[in-house]
């Protein structure tokens, strides 16, 4: 029973808040290779990713996160060398490469949020029944997405373990935290990203309590 992340989307479809639970960082695998590399790599979306060949927990789709302890920045290492070049020259071997799912950048999150906003609308329009709501839940085998749209059009989206229960109560608590700590902050302007420590704290305590004690105590 876990909440992985929280997104708040305003009525225009832009992301105004996101939070990732700290215990759900994506696992990284570090391994020392000798020449030649047994993985096929390619540049995708400005990242060096594994195109073919899975071994020792390194999966297709994982990106190079660092080489010999030097972190990667896009296709390059922090010291400006190009990753693919470093990996193709034999003199650099043996080499230690860190692979993992690349974290979502803030731009990707904004894009996903507005995509969900449109999907929500499409869901409602494609419905065979009249007066259908938009997408309330979306389930996969690793997570479940729950979306609650308030009457004013703000969407609260949480991504949880598929087994997480009492989601409605959690969403309601989050709405209350938003009403209290975002909207009552005189320096917060409506529809803008929420940057308020008090809101962060109250949201985290909702999540923690939901995780620890179940919902009955929050």
């Amino acid at each position: 029973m876990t909440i992985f992340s929280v997104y708040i989307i305003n009525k225009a479809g832009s992301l105004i808040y996101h939070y990732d639970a700290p215990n759900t960082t994506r696992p990284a695998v570090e391994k020392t290779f000798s020449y030649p590399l047994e993985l096929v790599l390619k540049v995708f979306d400005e990242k060096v990713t594994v195109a073919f060949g899975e071994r020792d927990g390194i999966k297709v789709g994982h990106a190079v996160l660092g080489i010999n302890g030097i972190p990667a920045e896009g296709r390059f290492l922090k010291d400006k060398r190009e990753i693919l070049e470093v990996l193709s020259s034999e003199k650099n071997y043996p080499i230690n490469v860190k692979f993992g799912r690349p974290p979502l950048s803030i731009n990707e999150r904004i894009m996903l949020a507005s995509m969900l906003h449109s999907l929500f609308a499409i869901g409602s329009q494609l419905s065979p029944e009249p007066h259908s709501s938009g997408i309330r839940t979306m389930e996969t085998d690793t997570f479940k997405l729950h979306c609650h749209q308030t009457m004013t059009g703000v969407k609260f989206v949480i991504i949880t373990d598929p087994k997480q229960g009492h989601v409605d109560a959690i969403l309601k608590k989050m709405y209350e935290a938003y009403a209290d700590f975002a909207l009552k902050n005189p320096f917060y302007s409506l529809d803008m990203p929420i940057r308020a420590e008090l809101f962060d704290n109250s949201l985290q305590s909702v999540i923690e309590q939901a995780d620890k004690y179940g919902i009955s105590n929050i």
Partner: protein
Amino acid sequence: MSRQANRAGDPRKVNGELFTLTYGALVAQLIKDYENDEQVNKQLDKMGYNMGVRLIEDFLARANTGRCNDFRETADVIAKVAFKLYLGLTPVVSNWSTTGDEFSLLLESNPLTEFVELPPGHSNLNYSNLLCGALRGALEMVQMDVDVRFVQDILKGDNITEIRLKFIKRLEDAVPVGED
């Protein structure tokens, strides 16, 4: 606005007089800052509006009311739930227009004016005009364009305080998807 009584155990509960006094200080200051009562009314309305657009979320998050499908339902929620929650009183809903798009909220007492006497020369001042702005702002966020104004005010010698609400239109393009 202060949230009174009936929220037992809420640590944020404050004495209603604090709100009344703060509001009084605000109006007194505005009268000093602006030249005439009309401008003060306008400023109060604007402040109220800004409060209303935020307050509505607080209201929806706590009050558990669904969407209203006609103006009579809206009137009921405003009078029986919202006023009760934030001001601790229940105004009477009356004077419906025949078309059902206009009604009055009658307040026998107004917590905002508890200690107030209007000084002479302020006959145009709507002392509690903040309430109008708050109602307008809150209703706008739930996609209702409503005109709100004072028609009677105890402070001006009337027997009762009357706030008139007139439904103008539904803000169709602002209605969230999946709620029609």
